[in-house]
Structures are given as structure tokens and as C-alpha cells.
């Protein structure tokens, strides 16, 4: 009985280790290959140097992509945070006609495969002569992210004690004071997480961005993808590593604010 139990445990540990390797290996391999000092990608990577990282930071298609991606993602986080909060406030605190429709619309972009939205926006751009305008890209990312902000902030807003709000108003606080002093502190946490998620979604998005890519509207992941279709060298690995590093920052921020495990619902 005991040996059976031990074998079972061993199988479980091997199984979990294999899964962890399966998930982490692709990310780690790229980082290892990026630090090579050789001219070609080979395993195991030979030498150790930062020269490919430096070269990636000097390559215009990547740096342009990084700048655009960061701008769009930051914009999406801020504007998405504002619009998302307003929408969440309307949905959780008020009843109005067409509320169901609004809620459906907010999640709709997430249910349609990205290629559908991508080609739809591209043909719209071509009809209106807007091909390659980066603000269309921004709007596309915005509508993908809003659902997350609305959901997270909505939970925060729903948790606010309405008696406190009414009491403050009765005691003579102006609506603005009520909002900033009573309500805002109570949903600030979920809002920050929602904005960070919006940032990450925008920064990582490729499905739609692929279709909207033109010289002035190529995001970093798309630039890397196009480069990868033709080249396979340590420079790609370096750019891939930069991509990971940029993605890690917002994740660490989420971790600081609420704990990433809780934000994902993996921890109680």
C-alpha cells in the first residue's frame, strides 16, 4: 500500500515537472540564445555577451515597434481605465434601457476570433483611405481591453457600501468629494489591476495588429513576427528577450498591488 502510494506520488511529481518544463522552456531558451556571443543560433549557446541585445536596441524596426507598442499600451491603459470605470459604474449602480445590449457589446470583441476583427478593420481602413493609421490600432486595442477593466472595476464598484455614499452626501459633501474621498479609494485596487491588464493585453496583442500593420503602425510583437518570417538569428532571440522583459514589468506591478495569483483567481 505504501509503495503504491509512493509510486503514485512519484508519477505526479514527474508529470508536474514535465508540464512546468513544457511551459517555461520556450521562454527560457530564447533568453539563453540571446546571450550568445556567436554569430549563429546554436545549442548550447556559446559564449556570453550582451552584444545581440545591444544590436536589437539599435535596430530601427524593433525600436520603432517598442516605442509604438509602449505608447499604444499606455494610452489604452489610461483611456481604457476611464471609459471602463464609467461603463462599470453605469452597469453596476444604475438600471437603464439597453443595459443588456451594452454589456453584450462590451464582451463581443472577445468572442469574435481576432482574424475576423482584423480583416474587418483592414477593409474599413482601405475603404476610408485610413490604411496604416495608428489610431485605428489604438481603438482596436482599446475595445479588446475595456471588457477586462469593466469586469474588474465592476467587482470593486459593486462592493462599495451605498449607505456610506448616501451618508456622505446627506452630510453635505459635494458629489465630487463623495466620488474622490468615499468611492474612489474603495475601487482603486481593482481599477489599477484592470489598467495593468489592459496594458498587457495591448502590448501582447498580435491577432488584430498583424492586419493593421504598416510602417507607422507596426507594434513590437508584429515587427518581431515579420522579421522572424525571413530571418533566424541571435538578433531575433535578443528582440524576443526584450519583449519578455517589457511584459514582466506590468506583471510585477500587479504582483505588488494585489498579488498576481489573486488577480487571476488562482488564490483565494
Amino acid at each position, binding site marked *: 500500500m505504501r509503495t503504491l502510494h509512493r509510486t503514485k506520488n512519484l508519477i505526479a511529481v514527474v508529470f508536474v515537472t514535465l*508540464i512546468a518544463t513544457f511551459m517555461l522552456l520556450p521562454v527560457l531558451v530564447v533568453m539563453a540564445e540571446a546571450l550568445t556571443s556567436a554569430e549563429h543560433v546554436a*545549442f548550447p549557446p556559446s559564449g556570453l555577451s550582451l552584444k545581440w541585445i545591444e544590436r536589437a536596441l539599435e535596430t530601427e524596426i524593433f525600436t520603432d515597434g517598442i516605442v509604438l507598442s509602449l505608447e499604444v499600451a499606455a494610452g489604452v491603459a489610461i483611456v481604457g481605465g476611464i471609459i471602463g470605470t464609467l461603463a462599470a459604474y453605469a452597469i453596476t449602480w444604475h438600471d437603464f434601457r439597453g443595459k443588456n445590449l451594452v454589456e453584450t457589446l462590451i464582451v463581443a470583441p472577445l468572442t469574435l476570433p481576432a482574424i475576423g476583427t482584423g480583416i*474587418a478593420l483592414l*477593409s474599413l481602413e482601405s475603404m476610408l483611405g485610413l490604411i496604416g493609421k495608428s489610431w485605428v490600432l489604438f481603438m482596436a486595442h482599446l475595445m479588446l481591453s475595456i471588457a477586462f477593466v469593466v469586469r474588474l472595476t465592476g467587482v470593486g464598484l459593486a462592493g462599495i457600501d451605498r449607505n456610506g455614499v448616501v451618508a456622505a452626501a446627506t452630510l453635505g459633501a459635494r458629489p465630487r468629494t463623495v466620488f474622490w474621498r468615499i468611492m474612489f479609494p474603495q475601487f482603486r485596487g481593482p481599477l489599477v489591476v484592470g489598467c495593468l491588464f489592459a496594458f498587457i493585453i495591448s502590448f501582447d496583442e498580435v491577432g488584430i495588429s*498583424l492586419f493593421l500593420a504598416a510602417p507607422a503602425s507596426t507594434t513590437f510583437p508584429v515587427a518581431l513576427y515579420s522579421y522572424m518570417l525571413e530571418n533566424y538569428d541571435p538578433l531575433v532571440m535578443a528582440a524576443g528577450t526584450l*519583449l519578455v522583459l517589457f511584459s514582466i514589468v506590468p506583471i510585477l506591478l500587479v504582483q505588488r498591488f494585489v498579488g498576481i495569483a489573486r488577480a487571476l483567481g488562482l*488564490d483565494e
Partner: protein
Amino acid sequence: MILVVFFVLPVCLLAVISFFPTSPMTGMRTGFAPENYRYFWKESYFLKATTRTFEYAILATIFTALISYPLSLWLVGRSRKVRVTVALIVVMPIFITVVERSLGWMAILGTNGMLDSILQSFGATMPRLLYTGTAVVIGLTNTLLPFMFLSVFASVRRLDPSIPAAASTLGASPMRVFWRITLPMTSSGLTAGTALVFSLASSNVVTTSLLGGGETTTIPVLLYEQATVVVDYPLSAVLAVSLCVIIIVVMNLILRLTRKGGGEQAVVVPQ
């Protein structure tokens, strides 16, 4: 509202464009050409790509489910620390774009890649993996596992462990407990994950085009080429509409299937 202008309008437009005749200069012109769809269904090339698309999607869905389910069952019995750590390892790659992870698989599976080099040092030769369907399925399973795991783990964690325990106390064999209690009570997460992974896998462009080759072309990859290289908007619209309709129908079928089965309501827990 923004959503109407940037989502509803383009999507309606897409359906209209799919009927437009192709124009070699601007990609399309206005008109009515239902033959676009006939072309799609008659050309065996597209039909082959369609079956391939769904073959990869189904395989990726099965593999992600086969990994997520036992993993979730094992995790609920562990300490909080182990549970959170392992769950995070599985889910975190969701935040790293698929481009980077596909690149990782290229470095692992390619000629002179990691796997190849390791096998060579043992004197073994590796079969060609990169640019085959196998690589595509591996890549899709890897990129979509977090989505399946998140929904399966959520429903497995919600299961009250005293219910299967009660069943086995009453004499049910472990197999019977699993098939009659555990699986039916957690099927909602499994189906939600299945619908999501299936939809994402069958519309994937990046992983499929990077890890696959010419003979693994799928509808999303063809669509991307038609839209950006060939600049044939009506044909890409036809592909997009056909694909999206199939995906949405399949998703709804999957979701409805379990709702009919009763799912969680099947077991009445005495208060």
C-alpha cells in the same frame, strides 16, 4: 459609442465585402458577387485547409484538456504554496506574447536546435519536427494551455471534496466516483475551456505560420496572406466569415451540450 464604430460597423461591413467582386487595383470594388463563396467551397485547396485547421484545433483542445484536468485534480489536494506556484507557472506564459513563445519552439525543435543537439550527443537522429503539423500542435497546446487550465482549475476547485469522499464511503469504486461524481460536477469548466481553446486554436495565425510550413497551411494563415500579401479583401472576407461562423456554431454547440446534460445541477447537495 466606440464599440459600435470600431466593432459592429466593421463586422457588418465584413459580411457585405465578402460579396464584393475582387478588383486587382484596390483589392475590391462594390457590387454583388455570391460566386466568392462558391469559389471557396469548390476549391479543394480551401477545403483541405479547413479540415487541417480543425484537425489542429481539435488536437490542441484534447491535449490541453488532458493536461489541465489531472493537473487540477492533483493541485486541489496540495498545500496552498505548491498550488499557487504550479498554477502560476502554467498560467504566467499567457502574459508573454505568442510570438516569443513560438520563437522558443523554433529554437527547441529546429535543426541544430535544442532537442536535436541533445539527441545528437546521444548519437540519435531527430525526425524533422519544425515546419510540420506536429510542431504546430505542440505550439498550439503550449500557447493555449493557460486558457484551458484557468477554466478547468476554477471548476475543479469549486467542487466540494466531501461529495466524492461521501460516494466512496458509500462503496463506490474510484472509477465510479470519477465518472459519476467528479467529472459531471466539473464539466462546466471543461466545456468552457474547450470552447475557448477551440476558438483560439482554429483562428491562430502566428504559431501556425511560424512553426508550420507550406503543407500545414490553415484557413487563418491563408486569410492573412490573402489580406496582406495578395490584397484580396473579398476572398479574405469570405474566409473570415466562413471560419467565424463555423467557430461560433461549434462553440455554442459545445456550450449547449453540457447545459442540457444538467452539469452541476445534477447533484443535489442536502443542506
